[in-house]
């Protein structure tokens, strides 16, 4: 009945030192204390940790004596009877006691060994880890590979795969439809501002190649920010015009001029500019591409942020390169040439002739109409009286400008002037009263007028009716008609009727007649009454400065004035003009009163595109028929 104790200690070189003792006692103590039978130098072990007692039948009673339970087969117990034949193990802190039958019958062999190595934080091999960052961070090599591969994947591989795998690009249908429409004039003048504040929200799904974007898109294109492939269609090929015109149809953005003329007129850079141009040309970035002017990825205003120099580069000294140019050179707003108005040179019913003439030449216009502005804008004459009686729109007692000049829907220009709408209220063509019906002569049809008058007299001679009166053409206030000619028209016979009819027609067309108020009338001397008089044609220009735009509505208030005062603020000659041949357009100096150079601090900035469009067709709004500066052009004119 002995305990055979084998204590195993580790040598420095890793080998074991085994010390064996035999204790002939039925009970032994285990602990850290020096008085224990099995002393374990382990601070986790109590001074007196446990007591082992041999029992009969190959059992050993184990009892915790230090107040700390013992760990036996994974369970913590305060006492247990162990069968030695089962070779049970007892864990005490870092040590383990293994019980087994001894060599002699009845002996119990106990092996005590440290199973958890003593903490030895300062291992010599740990020096590098402790003193260098190797112990706290991944190595630089690992970090470099990780970061490098992450950047490669997200910055290059994924975008390239996306680009190569892309089929067609779906764009929002409404945006495509919008792009195909010509930009309305009224929108165009406010376009840049509008686009500048448009919120930049993408409307298509984000794709990995978005990381290649070089900056925010313009307001107009913000919706397709994520659709790189819409514009960047082929690798290593700069955005082509065809990518632009896929949505922006040619009809919506017409060319500035014929390609051949553009090529000739384009300025030739010198010095470093020539080098740059040469490089551009060598790499396929030809001048005149859409993207040459419309730079994207430059922020909300980007695509329309066109520098003034883009215009003046070519328009400075243009006449030297494009010798047949019919427009003057423009170097800057300060030296902008005097306006050349498109004036009617010869009125015609079918083919009126127009000329562009500088306002400096104090030109006259040959519209064919007789219309003294001064007479119609008087506050005290018969016109003013008529305006008052008829209740026509008046300003300070005179006929308002806007009675005849009615703003069009854009508020940019004015509706065409029509005899019926704008003149007819006073210039009445009623010639007879037939019972309850007032008979009116048709405007613009002299032969019809002669026929109607002749038939009127003949019918009255053949079958006289009561209540038929001939009316005079003097302009008068309504209600005074009867007083002027209240007599019943009575004719003595056919020949009387014929001569009365001829006299009436001659009276209508003659110098004192109703037509000659506004028209030049020619007597042809023809025997046929219907061909005896000819009214000379009238052509009214409907766009004096077609190469620019002037949104009149934005100028409703001018120099603190409103209404007609604002109109004549610029059209200064109007109140005193006695002839329709007067050209009453303001000169360019008038604009400069408010619109200073973009470089000079004035009330309103003026860049080229304040007034001019680039995509206005190959020759502004007019069509060239005969080319030379100041030459003749035709435009769809109107006759009155």
């Amino acid at each position: 009945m002995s305990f055979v104790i084998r204590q195993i200690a580790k040598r420095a070189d890793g080998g074991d030192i085994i010390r064996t003792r035999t204790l002939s006692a039925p009970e032994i103590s285990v602990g850290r204390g020096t008085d224990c039978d099995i002393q374990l130098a382990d601070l986790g072990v109590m001074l007196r940790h446990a007591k082992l007692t041999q029992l009969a039948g190959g059992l050993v009673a184990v009892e915790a004596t230090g107040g700390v339970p013992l760990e036996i087969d994974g369970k913590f117990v305060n006492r247990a009877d162990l069968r030695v034949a089962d070779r049970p193990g007892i864990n005490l802190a870092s040590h383990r006691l293994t019980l087994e039958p001894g060599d002699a019958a009845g002996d119990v062999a106990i092996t005590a060994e440290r199973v958890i190595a003593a903490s030895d934080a300062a291992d010599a091999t740990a020096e590098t880890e402790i003193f260098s960052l190797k112990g706290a961070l991944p190595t630089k090599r690992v970090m470099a590979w990780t970061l490098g591969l992450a950047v490669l994947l997200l910055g290059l591989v994924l975008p390239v795969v996306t680009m190569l795998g892309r089929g067609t690009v779906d764009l929002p249908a409404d945006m495509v439809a919008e792009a195909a429409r010509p930009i309305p004039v009224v929108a165009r003048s406010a376009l840049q501002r509008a686009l500048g504040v448009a919120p930049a929200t993408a409307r298509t799904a984000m794709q990995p190649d978005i990381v290649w974007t070089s900056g925010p898109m313009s307001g107009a294109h913000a919706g397709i920010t994520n659709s790189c492939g819409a514009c960047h269609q082929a690798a290593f090929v700069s955005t082509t015009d065809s990518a632009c015109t896929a949505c922006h149809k040619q009809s919506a953005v017409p060319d500035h001029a014929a390609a051949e003329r553009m090529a000739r007129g384009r300025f030739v850079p010198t010095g470093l500019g020539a080098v740059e141009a040469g490089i551009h040309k060598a790499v396929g970035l030809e001048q005149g591409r859409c993207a040459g002017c419309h730079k994207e990825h430059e922020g909300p205003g980007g695509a329309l942020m066109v520098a003034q120099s883009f215009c003046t580069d070519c328009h400075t000294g243009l006449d030297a390169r494009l010798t047949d140019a019919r427009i003057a050179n423009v170097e800057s707003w300060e030296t902008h040439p005097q306006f050349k108005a498109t004036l009617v040179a010869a009125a015609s019913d079918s083919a009126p002739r127009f000329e562009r003439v500088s306002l400096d030449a104090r030109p006259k216009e040959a519209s064919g109409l007789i219309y003294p502005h001064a007479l119609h804008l008087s506050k005290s004459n018969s016109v003013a009286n008529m305006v008052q009686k008829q209740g026509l729109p008046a300003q300070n007692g005179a006929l308002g400008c806007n009675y005849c000049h009615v703003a069009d829907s854009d508020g940019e220009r004015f509706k065409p002037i029509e005899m019926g709408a704008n003149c007819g209220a006073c210039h009445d063509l009623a010639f007879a009263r037939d019972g309850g019906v007032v008979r009116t002569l048709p405007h613009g049809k002299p032969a019809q007028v002669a026929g109607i008058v002749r038939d009127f007299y003949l019918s009255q001679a053949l079958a006289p009716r009561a209540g038929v009166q001939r009316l005079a053409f003097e302009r008068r206030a309504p209600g005074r008609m009867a007083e002027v000619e209240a007599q019943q028209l009575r004719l003595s016979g056919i020949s009387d009727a014929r001569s009365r009819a001829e006299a009436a027609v001659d009276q209508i067309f003659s110098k004192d007649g109703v037509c000659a108020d506004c028209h030049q009338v020619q007597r042809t001397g023809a025997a046929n009454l219907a061909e005896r008089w000819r009214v000379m044609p009238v052509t009214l220009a409907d766009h004096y400065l077609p190469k620019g735009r002037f949104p009149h509505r934005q100028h409703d208030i001018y120099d603190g004035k409103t209404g007609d005062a604002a109109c004549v603020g610029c059209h200064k000659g109007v109140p005193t003009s006695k002839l329709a041949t007067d050209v009453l357009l303001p000169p360019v100096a008038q604009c400069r009163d408010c619109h200073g150079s973009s470089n000079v601090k004035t009330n309103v900035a003026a860049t080229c595109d304040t007034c001019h469009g680039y995509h206005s067709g190959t020759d502004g709004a007019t069509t060239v028929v005969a080319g030379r500066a100041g030459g003749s052009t035709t435009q769809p004119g109107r006759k009155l």
Partner: protein
Amino acid sequence: MATRAPRTMSGKAVRRAPRDITHEGFLTHGGMRWAKVAGGLSVLATLAYALTDQAPRPNGGTALGYLLGTVGLLLIVWLSTIGLRKRIITSRPYSLKAWTSAHVYLGLSLIVIGTLHAGFQLGWNVHTLAWVLMMVVIVSGIYGVVVYARLPAQLSANRGEATQPQMLEAIRTLDRQLDTAAQPVGKGEADLVRLSLEECEVSGGLWQRLTARHPRCGNARARDAIQALVNEQMRRGPPDPALTQISFLLERKDAALAQARRHIRLKTQLEIWLYLHVPMTIALLVALTAHILSVFIYW
């Protein structure tokens, strides 16, 4: 610059080539030659940027933008070769000191060149990523220059004559002494000593290395608790000699730990920037490749 000694073996003593006696660091190398070059480059780039009409606005796509971009690219590629250069032991064509001087100053000029190349336009894209990585590399480099100039003196002062293994050995010896000294004491006291032995890290994580602060240090906790016990016993009579010995050992270990941890803090501060500088440089080179390829792919 040292002139080369004649290699003739005439029997007379060969005269040593005269060397600079006084130390000249890389920052002041060659009369700040590279500082002047880099400064001139930056001024030139700034003037060109200010005086050139870049329509519609400055960015990498204008003529000047391409020029600055090319210069920047060449600089970055050259700057990144210092890792190769420093592994080649040679004095030609430039000494490593001259190379380092140029590396530092030309690297600084990249702040100007890179930013002007970008035209101050930054966004969420691979181009700005390259700029940000470049700036991280430069700023970490500036930090590196500063700590290289200041910390070695502190490092030297802190370690005294002790080497790193000696610092560790001191702690290890104290641990062994503590283990022995604690064998006779009861469980409560022994557990306190185990705090010092088992829950006391010399280095710790990155933050602890950078600050040298270990608020939960087992040794400090053990020291305070044992000291309190000793004080308690002293009020009643002579304290347990074992405890007094443990207290003394814990104090000594505390001092040894403090020295080692200060050493670690200084070394960490000296090393940490390279953990940004080098991997970020590699990432920058990749981002730069993506940047250049992408602008030409999506031209």
